[in-house]
């Protein structure tokens, strides 16, 4: 996978993860182009499209679009399920996740993604194992909490 983008129906970018080195300018250009392309598609259309020399796999969950760019020989359907598993992980962690959770806790969305996907490849596909890793980290956080006053 080369990158993953989460954006809203209004075209606001909520999360971006790049697995290939690109300049900020290129990233912005790609994002703009792709958000436009995907938002223009009608509901019943297929979830895959060719874009430049990449394959785009996307799916909409409520107000959010999840969009992955994969290479020619990569598997579209399994990518679709990578998106779904990620949504499940967010859902489980936040307790029926909504766009606002991702806005206000964007750092958590990134941490969860890093546990699940690394370097653009599935690292751990077991939901339990991913959530266990995140919960352990949260636990370390709670410990710190007790000793420091909240701002």
């Amino acid at each position, binding site marked *: 996978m080369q990158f993953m983008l989460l954006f809203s129906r209004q075209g606001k970018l909520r999360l971006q993860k790049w697995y290939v080195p690109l300049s900020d300018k290129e990233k912005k250009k790609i994002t703009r182009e792709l958000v436009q392309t995907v938002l223009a598609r009608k509901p019943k259309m297929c979830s895959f499209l060719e874009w430049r020399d990449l394959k785009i796999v996307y799916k909409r969950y409520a107000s959010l679009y999840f969009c992955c760019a994969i290479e020619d020989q990569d598997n579209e359907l*399994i990518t679709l399920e990578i998106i779904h598993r990620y949504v499940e992980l967010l859902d489980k962690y*936040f307790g029926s996740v909504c766009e606002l959770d991702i806005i206000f806790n964007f750092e958590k969305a990134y941490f969860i993604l890093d546990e699940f996907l690394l*370097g653009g*490849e*599935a690292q751990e596909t077991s939901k339990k194992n991913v959530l266990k890793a995140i919960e352990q980290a949260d636990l370390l956080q709670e410990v710190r909490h007790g000793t420091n006053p909240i*701002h």
Partner: protein
Amino acid sequence: MPAVSKGDGMRGLAVFISDIRNCKSKEAEIKRINKELANIRSKFKGDKALDGYSKKKYVCKLLFIFLLGHDIDFGHMEAVNLLSSNKYTEKQIGYLFISVLVNSNSDLIRLINNAIKNDLASRNPTFMNLALHCIANVGSREMAEAFASEIPRILVAGDTMDSVKQSAALCLLRLYRSSPELVPLGEWTARVVHLLNDQHLGVVTAATSLITTLAQKNPDDFKTSISLAVARLSRIVTSASIDLQDYTYYFVAAPWLSVKLLRLLQCYPPPEDAALRGRLTECLETILNKAQEPPKSKKVQHSNAKNAVLFEAISLIIHHDSEPTLLVRACNQLGQFLQHRETNLRYLALESMCTLASSEFSHEAVKTHMETVINALKTERDVSVRQRAVDLLYAMCDRSNAKQIVAEMLRYLETADYSIREEIVLKVAILAEKYAVDYTWYVDTILNLIRIAGDYVSEEVWYRVIQIVINRDDVQGYAAKTVFEALQAPACHENLVKVGGYILGEFGNLIAGDSRSSPLVQFNLLHSKFHLCSVPTRALLLSAYIKFINLFPEVKATIQDVLRSDSQLRNADVELQQRAVEYLRLSCVASTDILATVLEEMPPFPERESSILAKLKKKKGPGNLPDINNARRNVNGSSEHTETNEVTNQGSTPSFTDLLNLNSSPSTGASLLVDAFSDSATPASIDVNEENFPRFVCKNNGVLYENLLLQVGLRSEYRQNLGRIYVFYGNKTSAQFLNFSSSVTSPDTLKTQLNVHNKAVDPIVDGGAQVQQILNIECVSDFTDAPVLNIQFRYGGTLQNIAVKLPVMLNKFFQPTEMTSQDFFQRWKQLGAPQQEVQKIFKAKHPMDKEVTKAKILGFGVALLEGVDPNSENFVGAGIIHTKSTQVGCLLRLEPNTQAQMYRLTLRTSRDTVSQRLCELLSEQF
């Protein structure tokens, strides 16, 4: 603000995010952000040292601002400071900031690497993972230099935690992708392969990705992974769905890992070991069988995961391309998907079938689905699906279904989305050419393409139709007639004007007999489009006009008037103005025969791969294009073919310019011109004229014969034992030649040595016109005599009879041979028998110019060997005479004596008759 279920929640951050969300306008948002940036900057610069929490909060705010799309140019240092915090949550935010925002600021990279190094050495798995994630996210060269040797150690160390192993594997993968040269294979590689056996499926999942990437570049080093991967796959596909616990996804056992294993196996050909191969085949059959079982869940996730594995298995089957039964089963499975209610599956089935179509085993099976695919083209509502259908039709096309498929694609083109029109045009053009049985169909198809989608017809496409028409004389008349008719449309596409202009300029004479398409009508038709066209098309039309002047003297005055008009002669465009001036001048000063020579019909183009195919490949990338141009591929052979094609293409591109030039190659054109000017008329004779015969010993083109009525020009090409001569008969008078005929005769002995076939010519040669005749020649064995060209025609009531010795000599069938001095003299000695050598000493008839002599020897057909003869004044050459029955090696040596104005010529060949004849021919030249 939503309830945050977990974690600490930095309240300041939440407030800031709320503020941003409440901004009513973009300006307000920017104002709020600038205020915050100023605040953070002052905190960072302030005298008071910030505690870890505040630092974390501000860094996090900066990150948020960056992710909103604003530039951030400070805070990096504070983020790096967070890395060395011993509080996990601060470290974590520091790493996130670095991962998202790092730039190659070298000072910072050193500090970051230092922090990472500490965390990697901490033996705290959580910290180690944070550090590894950071390396994997940044993946920069500096990081590869610092950690490429450390990470493999962590990966294979016995005491490393599973979760760290997973991160280490993918971290290494990322570094290998960005800087492979910094990740040397070593003792660790064998141990990495054995991670495929690991008990922890998460570790196997991560390791498989790493191994696949490494195996793609170093297949030999990872061969042992094949058997391990098959074993693992076999265990997964035969497991009950609950066996793998949390790695089962919607009743599908470890779909991600299965896909990755199948992908890894695609780095290799089918296993050689029969047992292993059998086991793999079983796995693939099981996967295909499962596709027929009723679904265990109605959820789309279940069917997606199951089909993801299925499609990957089919990819492997296609990659192996060795098991016909599996290929046909795969094809049938995909056939079912073609009519599935899920758009995604229809899309993927079309895509996957495209590759199946290029296998010789399944090509026929794919073809059975043609009607369904054509239907998809008509009914699919999603353009991306329709595009796949077009691709598949293209891939399954062969001679048996070409007409139907091309017709369907043309029909679809009328309503196709603009985004895919150009590609369809290219595909139709390629199929029409590749599978054309009769070329009238081809011409019709291309003209239809221009009519339906002229804007999308690229230069390559219309260049190609012209190349083909020029190379096939059987279609030229039809092409002229068809473009003439197409040009009648009041609004026709500029590309049609280009093709029409070019073809009528070359072959308008073929339809000029019909009064409805008389020369003047043709010209007026073309010229009516002139003013609507762009500059390059106008330039092309001007060339067509000058060709008309040559073809049809009766419209000369009309065309000259057009050329003479201010809008041409004073055109603001330099190219147009130059053409108008030059063509006008040419038409005024040159005699008809010079015009005929300069403006003669274009010679055939060298056969080469279609330039359109090259274009399509460029558009699609070689990987995406089913390789229809080659024989159906064998095991894993497709990439090789594509490469050879690409090489051919590069060679052929420069010759595109040929099309817009009047002369095919400047050198022959120039020499023809010189001949045309220098030759004076010679009296007609019924005897066989051989006056110009010796002129053709060392060259192939020129005027063979000329009298007051007729000029005969030649252009010849030879290749091995075959030759082709284009004979041009130019009528120098203004009246018609009637009953015109020309044929070639040979003395009896020559008939067995040399075959000459001539095509008939038009019996009427109009005044000022030129007709062409093609002679095909085959050299059967060596020969001495020459055939005779007999020309007959009626002019002004009297029969003219002309016989000319046709300059076909033995040396025309030379192939030059380069050899070293040593080789030359060795052979020279071998050919030392008295009858093999022929020598002649003769007086120079022309000035003894070294360069001229060189040119003559080269023109004779041998390779001129420099530095072979110890005396640098001497000339040495070598070549092989190709005849159908045998090949004769020839060596020659020419020794000039400038003082005496004499030459000594020595020929040595393995046949006395050959030596004799070559010596005769060449000695007359100096």
